[in-house]
């Protein structure tokens, strides 16, 4: 089937089977390799992207649901100011070790900061917001330190990234 959709603001036309995964389309067809495959079962969050402004696991999204969709991946966010602040905070706090989970964590961080900016947040709310991302190196402590530091900055995260 032919699918017309938007990736990081650009219109794309691809041919795919109905159950092809968004993850494979992004990585193999469009060469957007910032998005990683970890478990392929929706548990680890390494493949997290925005679909119509909502956080999803790209390994679980079939091509047949993509027509007209707006996808934003980590590759499309590098040039935003807030992204550079997130990058610095992750580095300063030692929140990156092997780095494989990092793209997914950064996507969830962006979603979290957008939802919780200018309001208090509890530790339980942070845990809930990152339940879908797994890191096997850091033990999470350093990632949570970065997230708390970023939350205190009250960064401006736009409602929509493109269009």
């Amino acid at each position, binding site marked *: 089937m032919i699918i017309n959709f938007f990736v990081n603001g650009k219109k794309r036309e691809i041919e795919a*089977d*109905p*159950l*092809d*995964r968004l993850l494979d389309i992004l990585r193999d067809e469009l060469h957007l390799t910032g998005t990683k495959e970890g478990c*392929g*079962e*929706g*548990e680890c*969050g390494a493949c*997290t992207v925005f*679909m119509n402004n*909502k*956080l*999803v*696991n790209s*390994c*679980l*999204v*079939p091509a*047949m*649901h993509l027509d007209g969709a707006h996808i934003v991946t980590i590759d499309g966010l590098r040039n935003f100011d807030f992204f550079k602040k997130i990058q610095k905070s992750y580095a300063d706090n030692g929140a990156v070790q092997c780095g494989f989970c990092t793209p997914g964590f950064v996507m*969830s961080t962006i*979603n979290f900061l957008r939802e919780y900016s200018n309001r208090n947040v509890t530790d339980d709310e942070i*845990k*809930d*917001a990152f*339940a*879908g*991302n797994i890191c096997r190196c850091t033990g999470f402590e350093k990632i949570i330190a970065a997230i708390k530091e970023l939350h205190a900055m009250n960064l401006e995260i736009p409602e929509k990234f493109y269009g």
Partner: protein
Amino acid sequence: MDKMQSFSPKNLEEYHTFFNDNKEMKFLIFAGGTDLMIDRFSLEDSIIIDISHLEVCFGIEADEKHVTIGAASTLNEILYSQEVQAKIPILVDAIKTMASIQVRNRATIGGNVGNASPAGDTITPLVVLGASLQIYSPEAKSERNIPLSEYFCGPCTNTLENGEFITKINIPIPSEKMKYYFRKVGQRNAMTITKASLSCLANIENNEVLDIRFAAGSVSPTVQRLTKTEDFLTDNKITDITIEEAKKILAKEIHPITDIRSTKVFRMLLTKNLLVDCLRTIIY
């Protein structure tokens, strides 16, 4: 994957026509896909029916007596629905324990119920709420309503005919007097599949049980009401003695098994302890 066929009907009329032309095939209903995508290569002998474009499967509406949830509503749409939060809080408590933001943005309530897993976390609350399902039949070209309990016929099997699917879930709004309880136990707190769970709705006055309903998850082939435990507690007072007796009755009503997620013995112990926790929680 070349042979795989899929069809995304835009309305029920279109689906009815498609069904009539292909009814000898095995139809597989697909909504959010968070379960089916994982084993997508095993779906090759079926026609995938993608119901995510059917208007009839969307929306959350409430009147005086019922909340009606479209089967293709995502778990997060339900979690953040003000109607559901105000009128069906037990369902909100259950959904909060499910998966992650990423999965809840895609996974649908129709899928969770439709899979008929004994571990489906929306199922135990819906059973105690007395929910019913609106089913579309492409053969009869009409919808019918069935009690949720009539949908299940075994672990992950249901009573629907080929091509039939759930369009809506109708939930009677419990009276404000009803106290509620939902708790699940898994390997960890987040992103986990239930080893054992318990849902309860109860009307209790001065420690006396006027009405009580239980449903336990992951401890029987299908989720059913625990009617013997309910009957024993109704018109009784909740005391240490009745709690002990209720545990014994419950133990005869559930049929846990040992599988990859837990053992028969541990599930039995968990469910009894959930009952104690539930009764001690709801009397206050």
